[in-house]
């Protein structure tokens, strides 16, 4: 979509390289599904409920993706598209600011012995500016000043959030905070501009105690950090003048003493252990960056992509407890970074992990996370569809790419033919390429009924001049892999990429509950919590989407069944996680596709049952079983039906298994990223590639990577946009 967006951009709005021709393009998008979005597609069922592929949250550093959406919504508004427009122009939201809202609350779960869980959650500070708006001098995060101030703010927020964890919460994660206060209240208290010490001497004393505890530890950590970095630099720099043995010994002794003090302090104050893990990780990353000379290497952070992030942290002195802490586990879980979906085999390239963390924490604008008010399909892909059509882009749905042939060799390889298998929608389905959206501007959850399936062949120079393959790597490998590998010259490049790039299957679920989250026992407000172990490592409260579902049903043209939707749904929770290959392989072997799909979906349903019975009490304490085992599986009794009433079952809930082709998630596996091929690389004269699996500057599966890759693909064809205009592309 990003490639189509850039290639269809009006000439006067292009930021192109002047050496390239300023051409106009006729663009046709061939989509195998009945809706746009691939892994990000979503739709509405017959009751208006949102059905997603997984949990989609936008990060505040998605500058390129947000910029595209801002431009898109601005054009849509200019052309009269929006919630009040007629059927051909209707969209659920009128602007980006309506479609997205900031989220600062994030959490990770930690498991202690005896199945005792505890959830840390904190609010990361808001910043000036909004993602996707011009990087003016006030909000530009890519400056020394911004890096320094963000570093201080984020560290302070992390430390405050840990210090602010109320006593008495041990053993009952998610329990009410004192006086029913939220984490937000506590963070506000810690901002001294709004805290009057004269009003509350007790609070003042408490704060002083907390500050003292924090100050001692921070000072110790600071000393240790400084000394250790100095020690590392002195030991590692080849060009440094030889230092006397005495100086080194003195520094070693100093570092040793500081470490001992820190260890002793933590030993007598377990409350600060979580905080020391944060400090230990920050310290280790800084030491590692200096030791491996990452900051000055022309390859930037890519220089350490050959090693797994956890191993890299251990190599540079982090303690095992920190490396296995919830913070690091959460980082892995959010990006599904496990070989074959096996939690025992973590795999995340260290350089990309740190780049991701730097971008995530230090270069966001407005808020670290941004939620969509509705489904990703209608929030992102509906306006893109409508505006692209207004730019004369043609869409052809239900076209599955079956075969691709190439001609030539060496430096003159070309795509000769594209063969599509085309499904014809039945007339009853009321589905056409021009009207794939419903009365509210949303995509449908289920595909339209089809009648016939025929093949269509397109020829180079006749039906197309250039092609961008923008599917997932598994589908690309399936269709083009063998033919590309047969080609003489670039043989090894394609082959290496196919061999080293791994994908993983994921599973998602959405459950509509008859209790709100306060009644379920979670009192800290809406949140995204990761590191819950499997099945489904991540939980997000998505109750805000109920408003979007209600608006769909309230539309005059909504189906009659939807208008009879019950009043009992009070909250909705989304879950997402790995789907281990061990749960898939034997289920799809030697059976037809439909049967294999059913078997895997049954497995996801079992996993959801397991989560709700055995793990839901971690974030919903009110459904915890009693000590005698009574009330076990209480969460199952609080499910709503698909038409919004009490007494629902698992079959009424949404379950998603994403394990085939482009639905799979691409991993940033150590030792693989250097073999990714950039859309800019000219290996085939009339073809390029796009997707978050390409070398796009940010090599981790996410919306931003997909958009950056699309922009590069457009550049490869037309020279626009200039790579300097792709924000973060040249980030080390």
């Amino acid at each position: 979509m990003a490639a189509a967006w850039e290639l269809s951009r009006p000439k006067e709005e292009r930021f192109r390289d002047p050496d390239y021709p300023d051409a106009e393009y006729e663009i046709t998008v061939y989509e195998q599904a009945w809706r746009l979005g691939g892994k990000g597609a979503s739709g509405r069922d017959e009751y208006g409920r949102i059905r997603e592929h997984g949990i989609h949250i936008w990060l505040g550093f998605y500058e390129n993706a947000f910029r595209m959406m801002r431009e898109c919504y601005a054009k849509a508004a200019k052309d009269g598209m929006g919630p009040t427009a007629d059927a051909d122009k209707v969209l659920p939201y009128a602007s980006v600011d309506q479609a997205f809202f900031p989220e600062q609350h994030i959490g990770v779960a930690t498991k202690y012995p005896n199945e005792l869980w505890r959830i840390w959650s904190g609010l990361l500070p808001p910043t000036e500016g909004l993602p996707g708006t011009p990087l003016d001098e006030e909000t530009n995060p890519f400056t020394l000043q911004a890096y320094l101030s963000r570093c201080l703010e984020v560290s302070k927020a992390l430390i405050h959030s840990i210090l602010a964890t109320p006593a008495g919460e041990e053993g009952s994660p998610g329990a009410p905070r004192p006086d029913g206060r939220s984490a937000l209240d506590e963070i506000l208290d810690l901002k001294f501009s709004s805290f009057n010490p004269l009003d509350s001497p007790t609070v003042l004393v408490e704060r002083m105690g907390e500050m003292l505890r924090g100050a001692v530890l921070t000072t110790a950590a600071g000393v240790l950090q400084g000394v250790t970095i100095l020690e590392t630099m002195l030991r590692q720099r080849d060009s440094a003048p030889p230092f006397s043995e005495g100086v080194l010994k003195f520094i070693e002794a100093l570092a040793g003493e500081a470490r001992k003090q820190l260890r002793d302090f933590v030993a007598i104050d377990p409350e600060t252990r979580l905080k020391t893990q944060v400090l230990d990780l920050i310290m280790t990353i800084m030491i590692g960056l200096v030791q491996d000379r990452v900051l000055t290497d022309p390859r930037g952070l890519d220089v350490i992509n050959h090693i797994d992030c956890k191993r890299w942290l251990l190599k540079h002195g982090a303690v095992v407890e920190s490396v296995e802490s919830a913070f690091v586990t959460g980082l892995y879980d959010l990006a599904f970074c496990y070989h074959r979906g096996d939690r025992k085999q973590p795999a995340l390239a260290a350089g990309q992990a740190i780049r991701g963390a730097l971008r995530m924490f230090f270069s966001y604008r407005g808020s670290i996370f941004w939620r969509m008010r509705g489904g990703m399909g209608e929030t992102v892909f509906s306006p893109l569809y409508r505006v692209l059509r207004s730019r004369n882009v043609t869409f052809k749905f239900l076209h599955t790419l079956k075969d691709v042939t190439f001609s030539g060799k060496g430096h003159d390889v070309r795509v000769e033919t594209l063969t599509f298998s085309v499904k014809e929608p039945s007339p009853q389905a009321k589905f056409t390429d021009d009207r794939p959206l419903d009365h509210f501007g949303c995509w449908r959850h289920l595909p339209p009924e089809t009648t016939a399936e025929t093949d269509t062949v397109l020829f180079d120079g006749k039906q197309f001049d250039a092609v961008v393959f923008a599917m997932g790597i598994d589908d690309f490998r399936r269709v083009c892999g063998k033919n590309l590998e047969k080609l003489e010259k670039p043989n090894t490049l394609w082959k290496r990429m196919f061999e080293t790039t791994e994908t993983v299957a994921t599973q998602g679920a959405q459950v509509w509950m008859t209790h709100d989250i306060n009644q379920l026992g979670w009192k800290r407000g809406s949140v995204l919590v990761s590191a819950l172990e499997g099945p489904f490592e991540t939980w997000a409260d998505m109750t805000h989407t109920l408003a979007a579902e209600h608006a769909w049903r309230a539309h005059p043209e909504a189906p009659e069944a939807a208008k009879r939707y019950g009043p009992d749904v009070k909250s909705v929770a989304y879950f997402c996680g790995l789907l281990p290959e061990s749960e898939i392989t034997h289920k799809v072997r030697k059976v037809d596709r439909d049967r294999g799909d059913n078997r895997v979906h049954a497995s996801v349903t079992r996993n959801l049952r397991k989560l709700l019975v055995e793990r839901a009490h971690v974030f919903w304490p009110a459904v915890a079983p009693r000590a005698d085992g009574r009330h076990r599986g209480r969460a199952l009794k609080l499910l709503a039906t698909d038409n919004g009433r009490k007494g629902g079952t698992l079959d009424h809930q949404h379950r998603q298994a994403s394990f085939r082709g482009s639905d799979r998630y691409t991993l940033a596996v150590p030792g693989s990223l250097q073999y990714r091929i950039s859309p800019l690389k000219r290996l085939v004269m009339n073809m390029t590639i796009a997707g978050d699996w390409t070398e796009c500057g940010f090599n981790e599966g996410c919306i931003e990577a997909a958009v950056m890759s699309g922009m590069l693909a457009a550049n490869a064809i037309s020279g626009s946009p200039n790579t300097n205009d792709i924000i973060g592309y040249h980030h080390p």
Partner: protein
Amino acid sequence: MTAQADSQAGPARFSRPRPKLEGPNRGFGGYYRSSDHKVAGKVFRGVPLQTAEDTAVAAVRMGYRVIDAQIDRALDMARRLRGAATRAGVKDSNDVLDQAERMLSRGGLLALEWLETAANRPENPLMRLLAAEYRLLGSVLGFPIDSDKTSEKETPKKSTDTQPSKPTSTAATAAPSWRVRIHHTQPEVEKRRAIAITKFEMTGAAVRRSAAYDVRFHPTSAASGALLKGLLRREANAGWVLEILTEDEPSGRWRAAVCTAQGDQVGIIEIRL
């Protein structure tokens, strides 16, 4: 996708243009990016600062903003303290805090002014200290500060900086900027033209000499034969004076070589009339 053919391989077959790069430039400068600007309604997007020199310049400028922010923060703190004292019932604290605030503000500004003035004087010990620190930092971060990099710096490159460039020799690398005074030798006041120095580069050899240099400015754009005569000499306080005689020469950029009597070039000056 179908595209208007821009064929390199044949009359009707599209071929992708040859890419200028095939992957990101992960150099240190990529951490930074200049801000977007809007001029006459058109947006000029920022660019990553690709060279270490661009980055260092940007970092120095940002450093000034950090200092500004610190002053603002200190003033804000003083105001809040004053508010707290008032709430606590201290009647005469306002005057005390006002004085403190004023002192803090003036002290900070004076300190900055002193630092800037002192750092601008090449022979000042503070400047030597800053130079040493810059070299240490530069060597750690991999900035090209060694004398063998001089030739690289002289090659034309894109830069966001509009200040006069810094000297390229090792000895003078640390000088944040040269202080150049312009002295008009034209006796008729109405013929004195406004002059701005856009480039001032001197080698270490020139810095160490105390001689005066005759300079002749040539226009950079037009092929006119007009010349501007000037004299460049050192001042007692280690700054430079450019004595220049203007008449009715065309406006624009003018450039002059600074040469010794033997003809060795020791610097370049560029001015805008």
